[in-house]
């Protein structure tokens, strides 16, 4: 029986480096796909992973099990750091198109079907089970770091519609990923 994540973080808080190594080995492969998906570059993603886990090591004492699972703790940190990186790139004025996964949006068909299917496999997540309009708003918010107003502008939809879609998307995600 592996050590529960909560105990690993507690041990890390006490300065146990071995616990940190085990924590990394367990969670890094789980959050790396998320980071990679957001920053879209392996070297950048590796940098972000280092930052995230370094902060986890340093911030282990602040973890409060009452406020979320270890998985959520590390996933939220990883997502935030990755988005920071993407936003910094955008601020530098580099032409950066928010990474909406077109392949995930479209149905695989035609000559590109094989390539799309491959992309699709990367994002073969619970997200794939959402209706396209809901998937789209989650993509833009969670993976591209756009705010509700930015999403409304980009999709040329009323703000209220965007908010409702996000709420519905989360409700649907909850159904398809039972705790």
């Amino acid at each position, binding site marked *: 029986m592996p050590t529960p994540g909560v105990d690993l973080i507690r041990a890390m808080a006490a300065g146990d*480096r071995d616990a*940190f*190594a085990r924590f*990394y*080995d367990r969670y*890094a*492969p*789980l*959050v*790396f*796909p*998320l980071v*990679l*998906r957001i920053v879209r570059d*392996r070297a950048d*993603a*590796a*940098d972000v*992973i*280092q930052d995230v*886990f*370094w902060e986890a*090591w*340093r911030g282990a004492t602040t973890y409060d099990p009452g*406020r*979320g*699972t270890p*998985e*959520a703790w590390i*996933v*939220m940190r990883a*997502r*935030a750091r990755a*988005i920071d990186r993407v936003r910094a790139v955008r601020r530098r004025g580099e032409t950066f198109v928010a990474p909406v996964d077109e392949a995930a949006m479209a149905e695989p068909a035609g000559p590109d079907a094989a390539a799309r299917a491959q992309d699709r*496999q*990367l*994002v*073969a*997540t*619970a997200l794939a089970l959402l209706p396209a309009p809901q998937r789209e708003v*989650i993509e*833009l*918010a*969670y993976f591209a*770091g*756009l*705010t*509700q*107003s*930015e999403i409304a502008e980009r999709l040329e939809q009323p703000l209220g519609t965007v*908010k*409702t879609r*996000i*709420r519905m998307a*989360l*409700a649907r*995600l*909850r159904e398809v*990923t039972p*705790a």
Partner: protein
Amino acid sequence: MSHEPFETFAAVYAVDALDGDDLAQFEAHLPTCATCQATVREAQETLTRATLSMPPQSPPPTARAALVRRVAERRERRSYGWLRWAAATAVAASAAAMFASTQVAVRYEARLGQMARETAAVRERLARNEAALQEQVAFYRGAVELLRDPATRVVDLRGQGTESTATGRMVWNDTAGGHLVVAGLRPAPAGKVYEAWTIAAGAKPAGLFAVDQEGRALHRVPPETGVKVFAVTLEPEGGVPAPTGPIVLASK
């Protein structure tokens, strides 16, 4: 306000997309509402499960090696790393208070003070350089503007006496005045200053200037009609109404 909008805000907040007034309202509400706290937490757990449904993939091994090395560094080093991070955040002040009694705090405050001094010095130097650069750009732009006017002439000035290696060039326009560029002139000795003159019937003061370490100067001269000669003399600090000192530069 009914609670219903907050339920939507909670979902949007959980995906970090809430902004504007909605965000302000929700952030004021959230600390007071256990229901919304639970909604946000639940949404975050849902997003976490969705994220973890992606096929796992290991980061490059170099990332792990670097982290393990970093974590294994001596405890003091770990503190320094943490302090560097703290210094860069607003946490710095409260962190300093927390560690106030330790030796770490002493080093930390000393370092912070030093950083503040260095930062101030750099900022001051930058501001000075920027002001100087802008002045130069304005000067050259003025000279170029003048050159567009066919009535503008360019007059060379030659070094005189002990300053025979000095050179000058005046871009002159009777109605707009002139731009004087000087090179190779030694900085004026203490208590002295260079004064420019426009000479028509008599010599008229045309302003004081100093040269930089490399012996260069840019100087603007007010307009004057019928000028035949331009000259620069070395005069007592504050300048004089009529030339008294040696001529260092003069046009023919």
